[in-house]
């Protein structure tokens, strides 16, 4: 094919994926003078048309529930175009005994269109896991090496927060944080009594104008996408400056199938499926940056087989797909009667929490390793689908009295979510399913998953912490309502065994949508795929710029670090390209 087309265009760099990592690479590389072609597996985005910001539920026939009530179970039709757990014609499988869910966004900007905007730096100890507690591995880079890139990313995208000097939760370049809501005032007081650190959150939302992007207007609906780009999305903040250089080409609806190895042992092209015509095409480049999201990146590399790499390109170590982790999640909600006295007022704020609890027991002796942070929210937000299921189940009945109960309970619930670090284990990985193809003819991923005991203990600890915060704050813990045939909704059983308690409250693998670590970096080519510059040990013009290179999955959400690492990788690539090394 390549011999036939003699007039083929060769770009400097081909970037696969347009999310946090791909978008950052496109900006840095094009502004550095290189020509970049980007493959995106979904359509281009038009915020003006595609974002449902400021729409009231009654303006849509489905009221936010989606067709057939599909969004009643998860997410809402108001969210920015965001994909789902299942995509028609693009399945994945789970191995027997494993439970794992994989959320994918096939759209320009990927998951950054709707993400939670939580922008936390990893701390120095997070890069030195093995040196700190003997588990997992150290990164091949230190905090000091990535710190300047955190500075660059935060300065460019805008992150609010406050200087706090919390151990291992480094402060950043911050815009001023918004004032706390009533719910946050209550919880802050409770945390103060319990000596739990509760500080302004750190979100990629503008509280002041940055680079011509308007400050937040406090409608509280960042997840819908922001037409004034007052929060961070790759589609609105990274892709536009790449376009502005005149050196950027975006190919939407392009599903990468294989990275093609050239005769000299470097990558020379990407074969992709043009979804609009169902035909296979190729794009040529001098270097490749894969940023398709950790598992999709692993899938692409594993599917890129050749005589030199029978187990997938750059996979001489055999570790591609291994070291898969997600965040440990657990949640609990409380009812706070004092909120019934709060008069109606605008409680929206930014689209996310104004305060949070970073890991406050760092360096202390716990019955598990590593730590977690706590996110919380609730109060008088825009009423939505499913919002009254709990009140209806608790009070039952019907009529004006139930209506009044709904009104008095509205805005009185605060939910807590723990987000903790998972330690990689040998039972968690993805590989290629030997029998299943997607509709484009590409072999699909198969997931293997088991939480370890450390994660279960951590989830149990989260539950106990939530309970103490709720009770100290004057609230009552809300428990799940059982099936009608059990007759009683409020009996709660105490579970004494910590592992059992953890198992009953821990999230399903993948559902926190922080899956990462599948193409990890390291100094040893036998146990890692990428070197410290996120460059493949085996193929020097192949780089990875999403969360696949991560060696650990600390309790800090990955997106900010994806961008900082991608920025660092891209500057290295620029430097190598200028020196003619690629």
């Amino acid at each position, binding site marked *: 094919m390549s011999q036939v087309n003699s007039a083929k265009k060769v770009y400097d760099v081909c970037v696969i994926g347009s999310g946090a990592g791909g978008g950052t690479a496109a900006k840095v590389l094009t502004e550095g003078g290189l020509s970049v072609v980007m493959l995106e597996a979904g359509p281009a985005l038009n*915020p*003006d048309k595609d974002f449902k*910001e*400021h729409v*009231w539920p*009654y*303006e849509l026939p*489905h*009221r936010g*529930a989606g*067709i*057939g*009530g599909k969004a009643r179970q998860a997410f809402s039709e108001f969210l920015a175009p965001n994909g789902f757990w299942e995509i028609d014609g693009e399945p994945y499988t789970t191995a027997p005994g494993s439970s794992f869910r994989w959320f994918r966004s096939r759209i320009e900007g990927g998951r950054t269109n709707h993400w939670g905007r939580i922008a936390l730096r990893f701390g120095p100890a997070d890069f030195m896991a093995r040196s700190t507690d003997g588990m997992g591995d150290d990164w091949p880079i230190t905090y000091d090496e990535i710190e300047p890139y955190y500075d660059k990313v935060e300065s460019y995208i805008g992150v609010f927060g406050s200087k706090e000097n919390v151990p291992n939760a480094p402060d950043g370049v911050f815009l001023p944080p918004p*004032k706390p809501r*009533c719910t946050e*005032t209550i919880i802050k007081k409770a945390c103060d009594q319990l000596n739990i650190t509760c500080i302004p959150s750190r979100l990629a939302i503008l509280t002041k*104008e940055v*680079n*011509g*992007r*308007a400050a937040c*207007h*406090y*409608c509280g609906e960042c997840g819908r996408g922001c*037409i*004034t*780009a007052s929060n961070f999305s790759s589609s609105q*903040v990274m892709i*536009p*400056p790449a*376009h*502005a250089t005149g050196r950027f080409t975006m190919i939407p609806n392009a599903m990468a199938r294989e990275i093609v190895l050239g005769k000299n042992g470097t990558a020379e092209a990407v074969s992709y499926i043009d979804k609009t015509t169902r035909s296979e095409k190729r794009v040529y480049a001098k270097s490749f940056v894969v940023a398709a999201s950790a598992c999709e990146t692993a899938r692409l590399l594993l599917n890129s087989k050749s005589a030199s790499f029978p187990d997938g390109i750059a996979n001489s170590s055999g570790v591609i797909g291994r070291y898969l982790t997600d965040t440990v999640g657990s949640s609990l909600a409380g009812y706070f009667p*004092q909120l019934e*006295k709060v*008069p*109606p*007022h*605008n409680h*929206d704020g*930014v689209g996310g929490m104004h305060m949070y609890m970073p890991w406050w027991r760092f360096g202390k002796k716990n019955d598990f390793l590593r730590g977690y942070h706590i996110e919380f929210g609730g109060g*008088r937000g*825009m*009423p939505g689908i*499913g919002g*009254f299921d709990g*009140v*209806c189940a608790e009070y*039952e009945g*019907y*009529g*004006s009295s*139930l*209506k009044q109960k*709904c*009104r008095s309970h*509205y805005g009185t619930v605060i939910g807590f979510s723990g987000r903790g670090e998972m330690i990689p284990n040998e039972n968690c990985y993805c590989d290629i399913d030997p029998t299943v193809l997607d509709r484009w003819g590409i072999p699909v991923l198969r997931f293997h998953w088991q939480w370890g005991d450390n994660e279960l203990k951590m989830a149990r600890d989260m539950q106990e912490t939530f309970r103490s915060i709720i009770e100290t704050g004057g609230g009552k813990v809300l428990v799940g309502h059982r099936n*009608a*045939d059990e*007759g*009683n909704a409020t009996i709660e059983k105490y579970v004494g065994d910590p592992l059992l308690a953890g198992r009953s409250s821990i999230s399903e693998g993948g559902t926190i949508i922080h899956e990462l670590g599948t193409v990890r970096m390291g100094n040893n080519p036998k146990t890692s795929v990428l070197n410290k510059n996120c460059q493949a040990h085996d193929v020097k013009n192949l780089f990875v710029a999403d969360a696949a290179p991560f060696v650990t999955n600390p309790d800090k959400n990955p997106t900010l670090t994806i961008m900082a690492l991608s920025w660092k990788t891209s500057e290295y690539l620029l430097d190598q390209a200028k020196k003619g090394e690629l």
Partner: protein
Amino acid sequence: MSGKVISRRNILKSLTIGAAAGSVMQVIPLEAAKYAHGVIAAEKTGTAGEYQPKFFPPQQYKTLQVLCDTIFPADADSKGAVEAGAPEFIDLLTSENSDYQLKLGGGLMWLDSTCTDRYGKTYLDCDRQQQKEILDLIAYRKSAVSDPSVSQGVQFFAFLRDMTADGFFTSKIGIEYLGYIGNTFLTEFPGCPPVPGV
């Protein structure tokens, strides 16, 4: 302290300034600001014209309407679930979801059969006292234990109640009833107003 609501004129102005100041956003189209103000054309034009149910046959749809209005009735504080469009919303979703068709379509059939067994007529033809009697049974989980013959009805009613709550509280009527204030433009977020104990 109080958050100022931005006027349409101001938002257009700020967008223009953003573009002129060398925004990385290129130019934000003016239509975007219009969109942001929530003046998008509603896909549905209120209650003009009789709604034609997509799933429920006429008799069942009438029963659905009566049940919705019993669950969240009009009272001195607000209009009820029917004015809020709950039956239309429930019918639309049910027409698209076979599970809802079983739960709600089947549930309404169950209600009529049960009323026929007990009172010799369908729910709509029952008098108020009979209707209250059967609803007071199926509206509570404890009935499923005390009278297993209504356990399916309890499940049905619990689901219908959730769906009616969705339809009611996502309507303009329901949102105003709750006193939700927001979904607008503020230049500054004022934080929590002073409330004793909070």
